[in-house]
């Protein structure tokens, strides 16, 4: 079930909300059972076939976690932790990377191993990472959860299950246990409705519009010229941000309705003035996971410089692979790793760019590398990037020439066909740029929310507009044939 669906917004969420607070009047545990069952139903809506996988993963990790807290002997403890991590990594590896690995082996060695065409279980990348963190902290003695219901809820709570944020047990577990959360808190509900509405609008009204243009551009990459190339890459850059951060806003909003505060996952990433700054603002919970459970165990910043740079590259290699089983993702991750290494070297050497220039360089790098992230293969990525640097010709849409009165001769002009409405496109790009670079983000707006009628009308305006876009009906084109 998607957050931006009628089923979720108008049926599932209200039913869960009402049921939760009614049951809470009688018993806190029963109310949590209601939440857990609802979450499992939510997970099964799309494809129930992988529900047993999620349940198995929860059971195995919970019991390994308990053993890890009980066992005192170091070597046994380490063996159990290794077993637990291997279990999770194998699960993820099999479903997400098996086909990728086999295709590469077949290509490299001319072998003919069968590709299984496995359907990736929903949310496996998220619940696997969450549980690895839990096992490591159980090993360290930080996590000591003995209540299965709380644990199962920590993994499967529907607002964060499908696309994060990747929650840390130390953040949410106490909230599941806090009986104060049984009551309705008007502030949480108001803030939940507010940020949910912003998220829904970001996803439905902004991201889905950019998605059409990005898809058209990447779908005709071989024909793109300079202007088209930039429109394509920027459309995807904004699509990705408004899509992912919108989804996270909806997750945060939905969780707040149940008095659960999920961590911030996006904090104006396109305002970043360095690559390091970007990763402090983009998918923050993933960055935290990679930092605490990979970078620091590898030695973090306490080792000598060469190893630090190596560790950074390892972390970004894993980050790239986590985002998708394909070489374009790996190269995207490695480019970010290399950029981070250069930035660290640059900073340590005492160099510093003017803020505006630093922002410009960072944004250009992010925009260019998203092309690799989006492109289905390197050929397409190179076609888009080539267009952006003018290798496929630098021409201006004739309509722009006419409207702006540029007075360019025909040799500089071409007919823009990538989208129907150049004006709308321009307004969207400028609007998205202003929102992402100059305005406060949804977390800041929610944090400082004043419950005035004006704010309520702003939120409900976004909500109504977005809700009316959920069902798209298109005409049958060949109607008189």
């Amino acid at each position, binding site marked *: 079930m998607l957050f931006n669906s009628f*089923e979720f917004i108008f049926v599932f969420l209200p039913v869960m909300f009402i049921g939760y607070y009614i049951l809470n009047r009688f018993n806190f545990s029963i109310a949590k059972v209601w939440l857990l069952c609802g979450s499992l139903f939510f997970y099964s809506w799309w494809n129930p076939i992988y529900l047993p996988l999620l349940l198995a993963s929860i059971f195995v990790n919970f019991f390994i976690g308990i053993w890890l807290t009980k066992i005192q002997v170091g070597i046994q403890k380490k063996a159990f932790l290794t077993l637990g991590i291997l279990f999770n990594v194998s699960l993820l590896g099999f479903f997400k990377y098996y086909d990728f690995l086999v295709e590469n082996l077949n290509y490299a060695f001319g072998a003919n191993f069968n590709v299984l065409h496995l359907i990736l279980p929903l949310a496996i990348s998220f619940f696997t990472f969450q549980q690895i963190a839990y096992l490591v902290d159980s090993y360290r003695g930080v996590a000591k959860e003995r209540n299965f219901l709380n644990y199962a809820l920590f993994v499967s709570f529907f607002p964060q299950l499908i696309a994060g944020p990747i929650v840390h047990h130390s953040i949410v577990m106490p909230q599941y246990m806090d009986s104060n959360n049984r009551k309705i808190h008007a502030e949480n509900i108001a803030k939940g409705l507010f940020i949910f509405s912003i998220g829904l609008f970001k996803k439905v009204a902004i991201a889905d519009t950019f998605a059409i243009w990005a898809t058209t551009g990447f779908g005709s990459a071989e024909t793109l010229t300079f202007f088209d190339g930039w429109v394509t890459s920027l459309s995807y850059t904004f699509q990705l941000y408004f899509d992912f951060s919108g989804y996270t806003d909806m997750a945060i909003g939905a969780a707040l309705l149940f008095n659960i505060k999920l961590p911030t996952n996006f904090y104006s990433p396109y305002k970043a003035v360095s690559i390091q700054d970007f990763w402090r603002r983009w998918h923050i919970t993933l960055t935290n996971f990679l930092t605490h459970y990979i970078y620091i165990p590898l030695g973090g910043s306490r080792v000598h410089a060469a190893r630090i740079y190596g560790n950074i590259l390892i972390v970004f290699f894993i980050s790239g692979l986590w985002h998708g089983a394909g070489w374009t993702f790996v190269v995207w991750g490695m480019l970010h790793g290399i950029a981070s290494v250069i930035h660290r070297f640059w900073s340590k050497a005492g160099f510093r760019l003017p803020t505006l220039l630093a922002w410009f360089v960072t944004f250009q790098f992010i925009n260019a590398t998203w092309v690799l992230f989006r492109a289905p293969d390197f050929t397409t990525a190179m076609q888009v990037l080539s267009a952006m640097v003018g290798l496929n010709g630098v021409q201006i849409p004739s309509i722009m020439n006419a409207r702006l009165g540029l007075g360019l001769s025909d040799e500089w002009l071409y007919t823009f066909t990538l989208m129907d409405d150049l004006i709308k496109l321009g307004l969207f790009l400028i609007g998205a740029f202003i929102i992402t670079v100059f305005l406060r983000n949804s977390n800041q707006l929610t944090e400082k929310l004043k419950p005035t009628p004006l704010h309520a009308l702003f939120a409900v305006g976004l909500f109504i507009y977005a809700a009316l*876009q959920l069902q798209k009906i298109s005409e049958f084109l060949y109607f008189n044939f």
Partner: protein
Amino acid sequence: MVSYKSFIVTFLLVAGLGLGSFAGFNYWIDPMWTFGHAHEYNDVQAEIDERQQKVNHIYYSDFDYDTLLIGSSRSTYINQHSFTGMDVYNFSVSDLSFKEYKSLIDYAVREKGSEFERIIIGVDFFKSSLSQSKEDLNIDEYIETVEEPFYRWKILLSQDIYEYAKRNYELSKADEIVDLRNYNRENVALAKEFPREVKIKQTEAKIAKFKRMFYGDKYEYNPEFKKVLQDIEAAYPETEILVYTTPTYEGLFNALVEEGNFGDYEKWLEDIVESTDTVYNFMYPNSVTENISNYFDGHHFYPHVGDDIAKKISGAGGVPEDFGRKVTEDNFKEHIDWVRSKIDLKTEGVTQ
């Protein structure tokens, strides 16, 4: 004094009223045919996607008819109430490929709960070509859509639907047919009337298009057509299958002959007769097809022609004598010779 409680109340109240107004209006006009109520402000309905609209209509109505009519856009102009002695539902939709016939019939039979007494199939010559029947099509996606949970309710909350509803409301209020096809709430299609010179222009353009895109070398008969009809016969042995050919304007028929496709036309008719024993042929020069005012583009006839087709198939009177011939295996050769003679006569008439 502001509070979070008043924020919530404001939000829910405005959301409820705002969305409720849209949903209420969309329900009242019902542009996707999921409810069925009729009144003077929704009695002109735009054709949005007939497959979905008619699938919805069938799904959400007491679908109890003894006869099913299927065909492409031409057959949509036949008034299902013009048949006598049969209770017909017109399930014709735009651009219907013969590959879709079976899935339309299967769905209708499933919703009816039993076989029909008869199924009437409107066939178009140009749709029997390979180029027009490459893909294996069916209406599964439309059925999946209508079967989605909450479908009829969730589409009420749609701005797209609202735009259609608004238009339907305006057309109904003005009682105007402004499109090539508008429906009333009785599943009857009506067409906009054009001045004669526009009809002539549109017909000339259509003939030129058919010569360019569908006739001559572009046409290659798809033998699968016969198998599809035989499969329908075999799947519904208790049902009488009646096939009729859609009457195109004489000029368009002449273009077919001029481009050398008369042999394909003959083969096409022969395959229908061999599959279903009988075909009602309307596609040849006759007093209806030679009158350009019966068509808005030479290819799509007006509903009054559809009425004549319905009467002819029903065996009712009041139809021009030369319009429509019942062709069986017994008189097939004779019929083809007669059609050929009409063409020869015309040609002679031209050369004289």
